């Protein structure tokens, strides 16, 4: 369970997060959407301590992110993250990308880590690409390796930061399919995305952010059929006009 308690953050004088409150329960899938610069990605970074914040606290499974005595490395092992630009390590094969953290952070035997990695690659449908380097893979394949890399640490929570927005249209589906499968296995997921079809299919809750605030939250159908705020209406009309 993730409890975001009154979190505020400033970059210098600019307020990026303004008193965010949110509770995400186990097995829930929460989609965060909103215009760029609304603080979505920053909020994700705060959840696993990649960014600090000045006010409030975030409690992940009972552990405070902001508490100085918290072992952030340990905490992060429990929170997988997938990035917009994949961020695979270009000097390592797909397999090495996946096994690095299990071997070095969890001290798992190399052979065991590789066996697990092959199983994960199978799950995301690219077992045959295990020995290729990121530069030799398509965008969709790279993002699926990145998902496998995050899953290799067996996290309880997965964060996705616009996982499909750097992909060519024909590759979006293969990544979304993996994410939908993951959601159906009961993974707790927080997904920043504009893929409203994904939201419709698996989201338990949709949060609409603007200007560092949560301006609207709803179960999926309610949000699409009847957005309460003008800002959300405007945003949705633009998303669907493009899509």
């Amino acid at each position, binding site marked *: 369970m993730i409890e975001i308690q009154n979190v505020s953050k400033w970059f210098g004088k600019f307020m990026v997060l303004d008193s965010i409150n949110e509770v995400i329960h186990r097995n829930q899938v929460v989609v965060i959407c909103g215009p760029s610069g609304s603080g979505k990605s920053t909020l994700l970074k705060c959840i696993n301590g990649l960014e600090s914040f000045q006010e409030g606290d975030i409690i992940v499974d009972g552990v405070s992110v902001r508490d100085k005595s918290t072992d952030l490395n340990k905490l992060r092992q429990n929170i997988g993250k997938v*990035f917009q630009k994949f961020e695979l390590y270009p000097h390592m094969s797909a397999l090495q990308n996946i096994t690095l*953290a299990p071997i070095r*952070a969890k001290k798992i035997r190399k052979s065991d880590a590789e066996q697990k990695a092959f199983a994960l690659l199978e799950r995301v449908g690219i077992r045959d690409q295990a020995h290729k380097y990121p530069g030799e893979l398509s965008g969709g394949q790279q993002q699926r390796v*990145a998902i496998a890399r995050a899953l290799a640490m067996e996290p309880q929570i997965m964060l996705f930061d616009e996982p499909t927005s750097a992909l060519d249209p024909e590759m979006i589906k293969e990544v979304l399919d993996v994410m939908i499968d993951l959601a159906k296995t009961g993974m707790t997921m927080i997904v920043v995305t504009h893929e409203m079809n994904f939201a419709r299919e698996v989201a338990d809750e949709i949060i609409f952010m603007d200007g560092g605030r949560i301006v609207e939250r709803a179960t999926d159908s309610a949000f699409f059929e009847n957005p309460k705020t003008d800002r959300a209406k405007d945003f949705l009309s633009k998303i669907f006009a493009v899509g």
Partner: protein
Amino acid sequence: MLRSGFLFRGSSYGRGKIKVRGFDWKVIQNNLPFLLQGLLTTFQLAAIAIGGGLLLGTVLAVARLSSRRFIYAAVTLLIHLLRSLPLILVIFWFYFFMPILIGRPLNDFLSASIAFIIFEAAHFAEIIRAGIQSISKGQMQASLSTGLSYPQSMLYVVIPQALRNMIPSLLTQSVVIFQDTSLAFVIGVKEFLRSANIVDAREVRSLELYSFVGIVYFIFCFSMSRITKRWEKKKRSKV
């Protein structure tokens, strides 16, 4: 003119006019073991300067990227100081300062080695820092997000990629170090140039000896810079 000046002191005093004689390369042949011994010393000094400089330079570079303000300020000051001084001054300084510090005279080779390592570390540190900063922040974030610690992320993710980008600059700097080792001459290290100088004092064959030294330096430095160039080309074609 040719025989005046500091470097040529040993052979020029009291000899009067330069006699123009034919080239006699035998002087090289006859003194080859001694000259090669000097060349070996040059290689040793260069290897120590490059190896030690890289190691210490990496530490300094990481310290310069530290978020702790005191470490950052202290290391930044040290690097700027060293990069502002001529190498020959640093060599002299260690040569005269170390005996005071440790209470006994220091062997000239050791003194030169320490001076070179510290001086080159400052230069390497800036190359390495730039290399580390050339790697996108997302790489560090991705690595941290999997639960690896900051030092682990540096070691396994950032530095290997940074090193690859840095290799041309590091090779270029290494060639410069190889040439600069001749400055150890001033505190009496019998490196390559000093060896030739000693032979010259005995045999008075400056032209042949210093030409030979020049050719050897040229061959090594030129081939190294060719290798560097090829590496850069290969890197560019890969991207």
